[in-house]
């Protein structure tokens, strides 16, 4: 089995973490989620969704659970990981003053758990003021620095110019930060969870809706690992999520699982499979906000990854099947 993915949602008090979690629980795309929160009171779960309530755990009719973290996040996570009928994805709500990087350390507390991403919500209307507060300024800046992806909330309350100023300020505070508006939080939440199971890679192109678009690349030949790694570091901020199963020239006969959220990515050997696929291809799907993911730019970025190990003829063939 692959690691059970853990997403940490951080951000200061009032930044929109709970809204994000509520949207997530309302439409889980058929996945069994476990959502760990500090306080049930803040999560407004539709009574019709609740199947059972047992102390620190609320079970939902859609198979999800919502757990109160209580005093021991490690214990709560560990016990979830041990459950035979456990969740397929765990989302932790970090407290408003927590350093999400510290919370994310818990995603590695059990041998079968793995950190998927740290997503930090920031209220576009207050974030800069918060960052100057004598008590929490450093905490807010630390939260932004820990983020693989920063989601700006309440951008609908400010004009475009101000929204850009906020974004520029974050980029100056945290060089290399990935910042996105959170206009339709529910959809965004689902995108963050897409493809966390390796088996789910769907090479079908195009947008599932008007908000997001995806881009796909496939190859029958092994990829250049070094080129792939440096390319992953250089992806444009428009890329929200990428997933893939790839073969690398450096390790013949093995397949690797690629996961990317914002600026965090991992490339890990695929766990042993019972049946070896007869035809083993490399497939990568990249997801971003609609209108921001430029297929030509993506193709250019991926070219060295493919080209390094291919003859021009095969390359040409391959390009022909690389769909924007």
């Amino acid at each position: 089995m692959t690691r059970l993915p853990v997403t940490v949602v951080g951000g200061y008090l009032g930044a929109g973490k709970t809204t994000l979690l509520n949207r997530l629980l309302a439409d889980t795309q058929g996945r069994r989620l476990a959502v760990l929160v500090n306080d049930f009171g803040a999560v407004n779960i539709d009574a019709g969704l609740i199947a059972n309530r047992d102390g620190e755990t609320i079970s939902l009719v859609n198979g999800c659970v919502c757990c109160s973290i209580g005093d021991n996040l490690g214990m709560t996570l560990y016990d979830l990981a041990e459950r035979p009928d456990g969740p397929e994805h765990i989302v932790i709500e970090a407290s408003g003053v927590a350093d999400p990087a510290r919370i994310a350390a818990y995603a590695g507390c059990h041998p079968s758990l793995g950190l998927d991403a740290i997503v930090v919500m920031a209220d576009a209307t207050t974030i800069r003021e918060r960052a100057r507060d004598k008590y929490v300024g450093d905490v807010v800046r630390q939260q932004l620095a820990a983020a693989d992806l920063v989601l700006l909330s309440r951008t609908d309350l400010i004009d475009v110019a101000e929204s850009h100023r906020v974004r520029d300020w974050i980029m100056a505070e945290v060089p290399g930060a990935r910042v996105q508006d959170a206009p339709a939080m529910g959809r965004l939440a689902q995108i963050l969870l897409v493809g966390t199971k390796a088996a789910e890679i769907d090479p079908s192109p195009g947008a599932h809706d008007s908000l997001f678009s995806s881009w796909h690349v496939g190859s029958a030949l092994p990829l250049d690992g070094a080129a792939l790694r440096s390319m992953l570091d250089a992806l444009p901020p428009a890329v929200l999520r990428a997933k893939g199963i790839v073969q690398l020239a450096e390790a013949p006969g093995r397949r690797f699982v690629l996961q990317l959220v914002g600026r965090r990515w991992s490339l890990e050997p695929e766990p042993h499979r019972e049946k070896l696929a007869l035809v083993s291809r490399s497939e990568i799907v990249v997801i971003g906000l609609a209108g921001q993911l430029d297929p030509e730019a993506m193709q250019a970025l991926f070219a060295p990854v493919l080209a390094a190990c291919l003859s021009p003829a095969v390359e040409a063939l391959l390009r022909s099947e690389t769909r924007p």
Partner: protein
Amino acid sequence: MPGPITVFSARKIITMDAAVDEATHVAVRDGIIIEVGDLDDCAAWGPYTLDKRFDDGVLMPGFIESHAHLLEGLLWAKAEYAGPVDRRDPSGRLRKGINNVPDLVRRLKEIEATLEDGARPLVAWGIDPSLNDPIAPITRHDLDKVSSTRPIFLLHASCHIAYVNSATLTLANYAAVTAPGVQRDPSGEPTGELDELAAMMAAIKAVAADLVGGSTDPAQFYNFARVAQARGVTTIVDGGSGTYFEPAFLEAALAATAAEDFPARIVAHHNGITVPTAEAMIRFAAALEGKGNDKLSFQGLKIVLDGSNQGFTGRLRPPGYLASGANGLWNRGPEELRTLVPALHNAGLQIVAHCNADQAAELFIEAVAVAQAARPRFDHRHFIVHGQLLDESLMRRMAALGIHVTLFSNHLYYWGEFHRAHTFGAFRAGAMNPAATALRLGLVAAAHSDTPVSPVDPLLTLWCAANRVTASGRVLGPRERVGVHDALRMMTFNAAWLLHRDHEVGSIRVGKRADFAALAQDPLAIDPMALRDIEVLGTVVGGRVFGARA
């Protein structure tokens, strides 16, 4: 019908009472002091039995440990002590500190040889390589010399670090654990050091599960009280992380403390640490009202604002930690505190606030100011726990708002050099735990050990407050040294006052409970540097003698 009268005689009785300083005899009936004076004064109450066992000693009001954690009792019950600091175990035996790795390995081998079941893990606590000489890391290779097959788990004194051997790493499948706190050597192999709970979790679950998760073992209560009793404590605080609101835990606590031979009184703070909301805290506190017994009571609600200074997680005002300028962690943030503190204040609760560094204290003071402005309360006795970097300005605001303090004076000795070199620098290390200024400004100040963080030993704690000497002999901030009488008062009457128990304990006065500490020497007549070496002859709790021969 009143019970029989016992008169205790002593070379000297130091009463700590505001009006009457000294006596030689104290008469006790039904656990209550009925006379303090000489033998004739006591005889005026009628027939008595004279108990002369402390005839050569000095009687004081029993010491009050104003901040400690029941966890120490559990550690003695479930694990072996192997730290660098001398500690007395619940049987009264002195466990000499082990302060280098070869001696640690030797000691663990001795323990290992006594364990019969080959699969049973060897769990030890109190480890702190920063106090070792030389300072050297502890690795799995060291611990593999003890055993390559039996799992070994050593818990750091801070409880934030563990050291394990290869058997534990294998058993808990650390090859697959990705937590960043799992320290690795250049080849990627775990070194055996696990930093922070996230990294320790798999090992705890595999080999030390009984150290977490609300044990109801009655031994923890007895051990906790007994270790303190051996150093003259008659009342000890359990500092607020307990789950007394859970019926099974409360039942275990009540049963243990109700025993005739239970050796000290426990005052437990209500849990505002692991309980999330003000509403739940208030509800749990109300449910425990009147639930105690003679030796277990509930007082004050403990909240935690920041972390620990030696762990670089206390919240400092600028310029932050030495050299790095970094700051620590908030446990609860400003917005939450500005509503939580008034809610608890308005509910009539006494707030006990863990504020290790000065910014945490500043925020708590601000929150109490908000509460007091909206709804003034007199004599609420909210107090700060630790308050290690309080300064005159903060303490004047505290005095104005009625906030008091128990200081972590033991830090001066154990971590004074560490703070000077690594956390605060010279000035702030010299200004740490400012007991003299606190008393001068009229704060009711006590001092504490925070056991298991440092050993519970009021004579050591008051020695720290009086001398401010580090482990290497440097005096930190001589102006903040307090006189011995003041130091004794911090560990008796002042602590009782903070716990709303000064009408019952904290001084030897007619009408109060007969809780005494019997000392072999007169603390007011010796060199203050010798205070910590004073032998404790025994204690008296409610008229019953503990730890001393008849």
